[in-house]
C-alpha cells in the first residue's frame, strides 16, 4: 500500500481535453457572467447600486458610432476571456498541485527555492509535456523566466486567419499550463504568480514572480 497504483492514460487525451475544456468553459463563463450582470442590472434598477459611470465610448457615440461599438464589443470579449482564463488557471492549479505531490513521492522537501524551480523545469515539464524547459533565467530577486521553444500545447495551433490570430487565440490555451506551474509551486510552498507570454507561436515564456526570499 505504500506505493500508489500505476494508472495509465492516453497521451493525446490531454490535448483533446484542453480543446474541449476551452470551448466548454467559454460557454460556462459567459453564462456565469451574464448571470452576474443580470443581478447587477436588477440591483441598479432597484436603486441599490449606483448606475455605472458612462463609458467614454458612449460619450462619443453620437459622433462616431462604429468606434464605440467596436470598443464595447472588445471590452465585452475581454471580460469573457478573463472569466475563461481564470477558470482554466484554477483547474490548472489543482492539477499542478496534485501532480507535483505525486511526482515528489518519497523525495525530501526542497530546501532552496531554486531547487523547486529546477524541479518544475525538469520533472514537471517532462511529466506533462515530454520535454524539459529550454531556458531558465532569474534575477535572483524572486523573478524567474522559463522559456520553452516548442511548447507542446500550442505547437500544433494554427488559425486560418493567420499567424497573429493564432497567437492571440493561443493565449487562452496556455492559461491552464500556467495554472499547472502555479499550482505545483504553491504546493511546494512557493506562492506566487505565473504569467505566460507568447511572442512567436510555438515559443512560450512563463514569468514566475515569487515573493522576495527573506
Amino acid at each position, binding site marked *: *500500500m*505504500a*506505493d*500508489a497504483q500505476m494508472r495509465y492514460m492516453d497521451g493525446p487525451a490531454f490535448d483533446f481535453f484542453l480543446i474541449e475544456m476551452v470551448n466548454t468553459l467559454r460557454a460556462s463563463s459567459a453564462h456565469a457572467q451574464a448571470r452576474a450582470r443580470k443581478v447587477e442590472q436588477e440591483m441598479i434598477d432597484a436603486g441599490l447600486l449606483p448606475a455605472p459611470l458612462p463609458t467614454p465610448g458612449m460619450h462619443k457615440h453620437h459622433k462616431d458610432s462604429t468606434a464605440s461599438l467596436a470598443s464595447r464589443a472588445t471590452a465585452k470579449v475581454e471580460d469573457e476571456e478573463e472569466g475563461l482564463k*481564470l*477558470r482554466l*488557471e*484554477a483547474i490548472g*492549479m*489543482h492539477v499542478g*498541485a*496534485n501532480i*507535483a*505531490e*505525486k511526482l*515528489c*513521492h*518519497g*523525495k*525530501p*522537501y*526542497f*530546501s532552496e527555492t531554486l531547487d523547486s524551480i529546477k524541479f518544475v523545469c525538469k520533472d514537471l515539464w517532462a511529466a506533462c509535456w515530454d520535454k524539459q524547459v529550454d531556458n531558465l533565467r532569474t534575477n535572483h530577486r524572486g523573478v524567474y523566466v522559463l522559456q520553452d521553444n516548442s511548447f507542446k500545447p500550442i505547437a500544433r495551433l494554427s488559425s486560418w486567419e493567420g499567424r497573429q490570430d493564432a497567437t492571440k487565440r493561443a493565449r487562452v490555451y496556455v492559461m491552464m499550463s500556467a495554472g499547472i506551474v502555479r499550482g505545483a509551486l*504553491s*504546493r*511546494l*510552498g512557493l*506562492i506566487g504568480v505565473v504569467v505566460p507570454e507568447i511572442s512567436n507561436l510555438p515559443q512560450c515564456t512563463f514569468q514566475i514572480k515569487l515573493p522576495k526570499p527573506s
Partner: protein
Amino acid sequence: MPALVYLNAVAFVSSQNHPILVRTFGQERENNRDIRYHYIAHTSLDVFEERITANPKNTESYLGLLYTMDDVAVYGYITASKTKIILALSLSDTVVKDAEVVNLMKAFHTAYRSAVANPFLRLHAPADAVSDHANSLQVGGAKWKNFRRAIDDIAASTGAISAPPPPPKN
C-alpha cells in the same frame, strides 16, 4: 499476519503547522486517550523544527525516531509539500525496523495525497486561494470518509490492535 508494530496513532500536520487529522487506533481509542495524541503531535512539531534548522541541506524525508515518551515512540516524516506525518508506536521489546516504519509513512502519504486530490473537496473556495488544507478540513466531515477508511485499512494491515483476531477455523 503477526503484529509487527503496534500503531497507536497517526497525525497529519499541514505545512503551516495546522493539524489536519489525528487518528488513534485500537485500545487507545477505546480508552479515550485521543487528547494525548494531540499533545504528542504538538510536541513533535518542535522536534521537526529543530531537525530542519539543524540540517538545512536536507536529504531525507524520513526523520526517524523523534523522541519517546512514557510508553510511545514517535516517528516523523516530512513530505515535499512540507506536510508532516507523525506516527506513535507503542514501545515494545521487539526491534522495530526502519524500513517498516518508512513503508507505513509512505502508505499514509499516498492515502493523504489521494484524499487531497479530490477536486470536490473545496468546491466553493476562491480559485486563487492557497491550499492550506487544514482550513477546509472538517476532517470529521463526510467528505473525508474515504480518507479515514484508507487510514484504517493501513493500520489494520499492520496487524495493529484494532484488527480483530481471525476467527478460529473449525
